């Protein structure tokens, strides 16, 4: 009986979980190994007798040094961080108010508005970047961080609004009714009671918005042109692929450094993130 259960636990739990972890983490491992592999080893044939494709015997930091010394990578990192934070803040503020309004206020056309906001989320960026480029040029924001800080919210606000609307709906409305009887206005009840209770939802919307801005490629590619304005994803690709030469070591070093802030943000808030997406408030 006990033996059978152990056997089942392996088949249904440990083995699938291990496969999943390997599948998920292997690209990161590959990226790391490539980033610290010396060039000689990197370009060695797989069939060479001393080939070690899955690990390296002589780890080196030369690619990191090259990345930081020869490219504007620190500047890209700073640009990306600034743009991601500003566009996340803009999107969160708009999303919180819009989500609250759609969840709680009854007004003419509220359902239509909710659907309309959702539909804008479904329009692909590849379709939007052309008209947006025209607007950006018209406002003379091209090649400035504002080009991205103001266009990222066009995708992020619908997402934040919908996530937060769903979260606000799970909060018992008696909470704010009670606050209103206790002496708060509707706005006061929203700010003092509903927002603090919705922190898990707000954080997960924020993390998602941040990650999306951090990784965004096409707008960043189109709206920014000079090297020192670029973001990490665009900078790494455009400056480390010269002609048909791929600087694999530096590319991977850049990708690794670029993913560290996102991973840190995730690991700090992972509990809130899960609670936010599963939407659980206990009164």
């Amino acid at each position, binding site marked *: 009986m006990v033996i059978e259960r152990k056997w089942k636990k392996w088949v249904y739990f440990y083995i699938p979980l291990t496969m999943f972890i390997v599948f998920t983490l292997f690209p990161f491992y590959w990226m790391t190994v490539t980033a610290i592999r010396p060039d000689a080893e990197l370009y060695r044939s797989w069939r060479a007798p001393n080939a070690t494709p899955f690990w390296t015997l002589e780890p080196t930091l030369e690619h990191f040094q090259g990345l930081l010394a020869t490219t504007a990578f620190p500047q890209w990192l700073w640009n990306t961080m600034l743009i991601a934070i500003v566009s996340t803040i803009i999107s969160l503020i708009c999303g919180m108010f819009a989500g609250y309004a759609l969840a709680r206020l009854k007004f003419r056309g509220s359902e239509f508005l909710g659907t309309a906001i959702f539909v804008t989320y479904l329009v692909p960026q590849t379709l939007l970047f052309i008209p947006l480029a025209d607007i950006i040029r018209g406002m003379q924001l091209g090649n400035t961080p504002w080009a991205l800080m103001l266009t990222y919210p066009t995708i992020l606000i619908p997402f934040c609004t919908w996530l937060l609307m769903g979260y606000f709906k799970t909060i018992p409305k008696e909470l704010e009714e009670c606050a209103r*009887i206790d*002496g708060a206005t509707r706005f006061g009840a929203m700010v003092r009671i509903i927002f603090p209770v919705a922190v898990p939802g707000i954080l997960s919307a924020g993390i998602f918005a941040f990650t999306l801005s951090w990784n965004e490629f096409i707008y960043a590619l189109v709206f920014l042109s000079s090297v020192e304005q670029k973001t990490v994803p665009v900078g790494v690709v455009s400056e480390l692929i010269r002609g048909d030469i791929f600087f694999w070591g530096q590319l991977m070093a850049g990708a690794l450094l670029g993913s560290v802030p996102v991973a840190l943000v995730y690991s700090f808030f992972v509990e809130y993130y899960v609670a936010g997406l599963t939407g659980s408030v206990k009164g």
Partner: protein
Amino acid sequence: MAEVVLTGVNKWYDGHVHAVKDVNLHARDKEFMVFVGPSGCGKTTTLRMIAGLEEISSGEIRIGSRVVNDLPPMDRDIAMVFQNYALYPHKSVYDNMAFGLQMRKFDKAEIQRRVQEAAAILGIEPLLERKPRQLSGGQRQRVALGRAIVRHPALFLFDEPLSNLDAKLRVQMRVELKRLHERLETTAIYVTHDQVEAMTLGDRVVVMKDGVVQQVGDPMELYGRPANKFVAGFIGSPAMNFADVTIADAGGTLWAEATGIRVKVPPPRVAALRPHTGRRATLGVRPEALRLANGSDPAEYVFDAVVDVVEPLGSEILLNISAGPHALVARVDPSVSVKMHERVRLAFDPAKLHFFDQATESAI
């Protein structure tokens, strides 16, 4: 001084659901008034209109000397306790209770004094630093009460505050609520679907059904003189027995007749029932107005029945009996010994018979 007066209050939802119909009520100063009725009867909507959480479609609501129709909830000088307690989950018990006072800009020392005082009354002083999720259901209930009483409002509103508690705790909190009201001497309006709660707590009880007030009265009045068949059946447990009868005139004496039951209309009721002669009516009799007959009972108040089920409850015995097509419940003395399927003879208490018009269902 805070009486509550509702005059011609109506509530329409989306223009076609008439949830509350022309309600006129007067809760006196310091009175504990209970709204009771089945779900969907409009009692909670009425309460929420008094609180200002629902707009009223027409009519007037007055609290004390002020018409509050257009006042927001915060300006009505009320406190409300919700069914799910609605404690602020991110605030400690102390901050939950202090919130209303902080919003009203009381100074710190006064807030501290009032919260401590309320906590002492409710026996929750050791819990002040905890968060709501660390409390049991009964403790949360007390915190919700505490949050209401620290404000010293003119009016308390309770929306089924005991429904989420288990049966034993509910009985205990019921007694505490009554004691609390005695001590605070503040007008209170309390909504419940539980008629026992309504009867035990209310100075006066408002029975509602389908958005219409059926009867307003003190508990014994509702029980002894229900205004219609709905109130008669809703108040009291086990419920009042009903039988469809025909009022017949036999040589000047009125009789209520049905298959298996024939009972003389008691002399004091004859005048009222005379116009119904030859018509159908509903006879109502409470379980305790039925007892096993002995030799001295007058024959015109006695009928034969068969015992279907015996429910010995200790302090009393409930007999489920059938007389012809009628299934009735009798509440009898625990010393009585009867068995299932036994034939028994039962007597009505003639002073406790109720008659209802079949068309209007109102008491005759």
